């Protein structure tokens, strides 16, 4: 069984590569039992969205307009 520390590493790596079958199974089982890691996993998805938004502001700038001026 993987512990939380290993699970967070795995969740992080999932942002760079596709996990193997056993990794996915282990991850799913752990997340089903562990609320903290479940939150962490959601946060990693959110973090990526935040970073994409940050980058998108660079290209688009429109969203940023209201952000800068409200």
């Amino acid at each position: 069984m993987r512990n939380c520390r290993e699970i967070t590493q795995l969740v992080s790596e999932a942002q760079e590569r596709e996990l193997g079958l056993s990794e996915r199974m282990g991850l799913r089982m752990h997340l089903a039992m562990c609320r903290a890691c479940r939150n962490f996993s959601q946060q990693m998805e959110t973090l990526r969205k935040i970073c994409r938004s940050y980058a998108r502001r660079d290209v688009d700038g429109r969203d940023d307009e209201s952000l800068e001026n409200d």
Partner: protein
Amino acid sequence: MGEYSGGKAAPGRSDRGGEPAVDAVAHLQDPVYLEGLRTQMQRFAVMQLGDRGLAEDAVQEALLGALKSVRSFNGRAALKTWMFAILKNKIADLLRARGRQVEVQSLLRTDEEHRDLDELFNDRGHWRRDERPAHWADPESAIHDRHFWQVFEACLDRLPGQQARLFMMREFIELETPEICAAADVTVSNLNVTLHRARMRLRECLENNWFQAGEAVEEA
């Protein structure tokens, strides 16, 4: 509409339906604003490239490129972010072109860089009670709150150099693992460990200073 036609726009004001080009020109004529922008870009470029001279060149090119297409800007915010977009592309090109030749001697590997995750996990690798990630309420509204971006940038600033550099390459410039490993001369496992730590720090910082901070106020 016509309020910017006199030339210099009021600081911090911009109008989506107004005279964006004039607005942008006004910003570019503001030396204080320009210097602040250049400093930010410079910091970003140095962090990415690990080379002050190269970074200066990239920033210079980005500024010149931006000046050429100044008419397409839409207000101060767009100007700034557009410049970063140009800069990002230049940095990505440079990193790809240099490949393994990128030198990493300028990257400071402080003790902090190698701070272990022991503070967060106990001996069995489980979260310490105080460190357990909480549920983040309404991240969508954070994205539309300019105060959130101040917190986000402050959290980024707190990342140790190598973590910040690799994280930005991955998340902002959107390079893939092989590209980052080649450009920064790190192994895949080194990259994975570093990104993991960067994300751990960043999420902790965002949680403490944004997602939980609000709750604490409400509870108080």
